């Protein structure tokens, strides 16, 4: 089907474009941009007053399949993704079994094909079973379709193993995505260590545990020349380290999750486990640092770290509850309301953060609406008012700290490879 998106504001920083233009999608590709007269047989969609952008990419998602289908499946996660305006997602390898070999990568891609909604890009494990000791079969996973490697959630502690992993990944030029945490220093803390952890009597993990690993990764990137991407950065000092590394020309990038620029550890005073995740919510000062990093370009991407859990994993005391919050269906409205509308970032910058940069980092050949590119498109209605209602999510999970929030600006149309997969245009 040929689709003509008519009258929208097209935002595509890859070609330095931000202007009113029609977009023609044909045979799964972007066929034409500009003033286009509708022709017989085309599906014409009026998107005037809306923003038309290259499909958004969330490079940090947990889909839980295989192994923990009671939390989320590839199908429900796919629905949540397209409902949230995402056309591509990268899924982390901490499934059961771990995605550490070709067979599991293949299984995920097959399930993704069956769900047939969003482009799913598996991330392979760095080490077998995330054991931190033996390298996984990275080459075979990459050949099958893995776009990066990571031991997210169980970060490699041994510096020599991490060095070898970085060296080895150079064969395939895939980035190493690292959840940065020195586990000895974090010492099973359940929240940020600081004034609030002292007050509420919960074991803290200090921001230094994150910073230390970020600095290590930067040093190893310098040594090996490997592209390192810091997952869900959350504290000011770690961000400063990334900023300095970039200034030195090192191949280091980073992402931030919406909860880390929207919420602080003061929320933990409620003991509500929906505020528990790792890295934990940090201080107001860290939140301000994240926001300035988003504005000044030192942060490359916004990624949700969508971490679905069933209520049985969360209806517990704070310290017994599982880590993680979901984010696919709230990310765009949060970014729109709190960053774009408040003019912290421009719409073009938002597209860089949520489409162009993740595409470049993962080597996806997406993130733009240039003529000839894959027809992955997200349309955002900047005036659409929503009240977040977790009970209505497409995701199986409900562990959302933003439940009940009122936000303005939401995705209304998601197109993947030229096919409409989500439509809430009135």
């Amino acid at each position, binding site marked *: 089907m040929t689709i003509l998106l008519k009258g929208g504001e097209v935002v595509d920083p890859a070609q330095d474009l931000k202007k009113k233009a029609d977009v023609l999608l044909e045979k799964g590709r972007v066929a034409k941009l500009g003033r286009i007269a509708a022709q017989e047989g085309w599906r014409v969609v009026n998107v005037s007053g809306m923003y038309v952008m290259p499909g958004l990419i969330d490079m940090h998602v947990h889909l839980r399949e295989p192994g923990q289908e009671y939390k989320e499946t590839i199908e429900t996660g796919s629905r949540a993704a397209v409902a949230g305006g995402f056309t591509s997602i990268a899924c982390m390898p901490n499934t059961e079994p771990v995605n550490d070999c070709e067979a599991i990568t293949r299984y995920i891609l097959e399930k993704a094909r069956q769900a047939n909604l969003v482009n799913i890009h598996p991330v392979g494990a760095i080490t077998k079973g995330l054991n931190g000791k033996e390298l996984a079969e990275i080459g075979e996973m990459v050949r099958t379709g893995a776009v990066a490697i990571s031991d997210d959630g169980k970060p490699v502690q041994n510096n020599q193993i991490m060095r070898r992993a970085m060296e080895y990944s150079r064969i395939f030029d895939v980035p190493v995505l690292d959840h940065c945490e020195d586990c000895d220093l974090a010492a099973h803390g359940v929240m940020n*260590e600081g004034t609030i952890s002292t007050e509420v009597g*919960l074991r803290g993990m200090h921001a230094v545990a994150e910073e230390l690993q970020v600095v290590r990764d930067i040093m190893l990137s310098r040594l090996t020349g490997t592209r390192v991407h810091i997952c869900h950065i959350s504290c000011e000092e770690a961000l400063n380290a990334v900023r300095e590394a970039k200034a030195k020309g090192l191949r280091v990038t980073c992402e931030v999750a919406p909860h880390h620029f929207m919420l602080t550890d003061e929320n933990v005073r409620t003991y509500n486990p929906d505020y528990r995740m790792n890295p934990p919510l940090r201080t107001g000062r860290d939140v301000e640092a994240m926001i300035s990093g988003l504005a000044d370009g030192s942060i490359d991407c916004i990624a949700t770290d969508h971490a679905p859990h069933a209520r049985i994993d969360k209806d517990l005391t704070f310290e017994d509850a599982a880590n993680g919050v979901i984010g696919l269906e709230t990310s765009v409205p949060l970014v729109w309301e709190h960053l774009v509308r408040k003019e912290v970032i421009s719409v073009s910058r938002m597209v860089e953060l949520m489409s162009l940069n993740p595409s470049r980092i993962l080597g996806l050949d997406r993130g733009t609406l240039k003529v000839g590119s894959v027809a992955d498109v997200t349309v955002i209605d900047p005036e659409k008012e929503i009240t977040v209602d977790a009970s209505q999510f497409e995701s199986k999970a409900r562990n959302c700290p933003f439940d009940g929030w009122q936000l303005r600006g939401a995705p209304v149309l998601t197109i993947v490879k030229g096919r409409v997969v989500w439509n809430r245009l009135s």
Partner: protein
Amino acid sequence: MPLSGKNLLGIAGLPVSDIRLILNSARSFREISARAIKKVPTLRGRTVINLFYEPSTRTRSSFEIAAKRLSADSLNFSASSSSVSKGETLIDTALNLQSMRPDIIIIRHKAAGAPHLLAKHCGDCAVINAGDGMHEHPTQALLDALTIEDKKGRLEGLKVSIIGDITHSRVARSNALLLKKMGADVWICGPPTLIPIDFEQYGGTVTYDMLEALSGADVVMMLRTQLERQQEVFYPSVKEYFSLYGLNRKKLSAAKKDVIVMHPGPINRGVEIDPEIADGDLSVILEQVTNGVAVRMAILYLLLGASEEGSK
């Protein structure tokens, strides 16, 4: 006059007027325990559940005696002998207990915030925090305040030094909060490895020097050293710990002549306190235990009074 809240979850949310009310009521309840027949009919027909997820002798017996002396029916529900050991979650336990319509649940739990979670799920039933993780132990702080006020006639302006493992101590947190509210000069002392970040938020002065903490002190509150934490490298050895932060006669001579020595128990003799001091004239450790019953009687009475007011 009842307490201002339905529950007693911590000192943090407790107004000074409530603290006063509890201490004053405790003084009148203390007289009951001195009688030959130690029972009054005040809470006849009321049901009190002791829900203890952590081992406790002192606190649990104290609550149980307090309930019995007020003629309430009390039930002990401990982790090892209940469905808790079969994996039932706290919320399920709360819902089940609530269905039996108790008036008060007293909870001790290893997790900070557990009493708050319970309070959210047990309807009209009042909840008393008998110690939650490293967070609070409000009844301990109240009985300590009663003991200090009995001996010193006041709390305001007293130098009170809390010494030992501050990080893992809910007693330290509740006491620091209460004493600050009542105008005492609070000193916090221990090795830096056992004092959490920004403990000064409670308004006290932090020192690593025990003599500075003891100097001119009116009250010395020693905390229990958790020997099971030794492997976590907070200090090199019990011997060195005692030499730096253990209380003996020589160090205590830096305090005021009429200093009182307190300890929430159970004591590790020779680890944090010399037996000579624990059993000596300056020690009020056993009076703390006596006051514990009185304070808990007062709280049970005041909380049930409050719910009665609410139902009218």
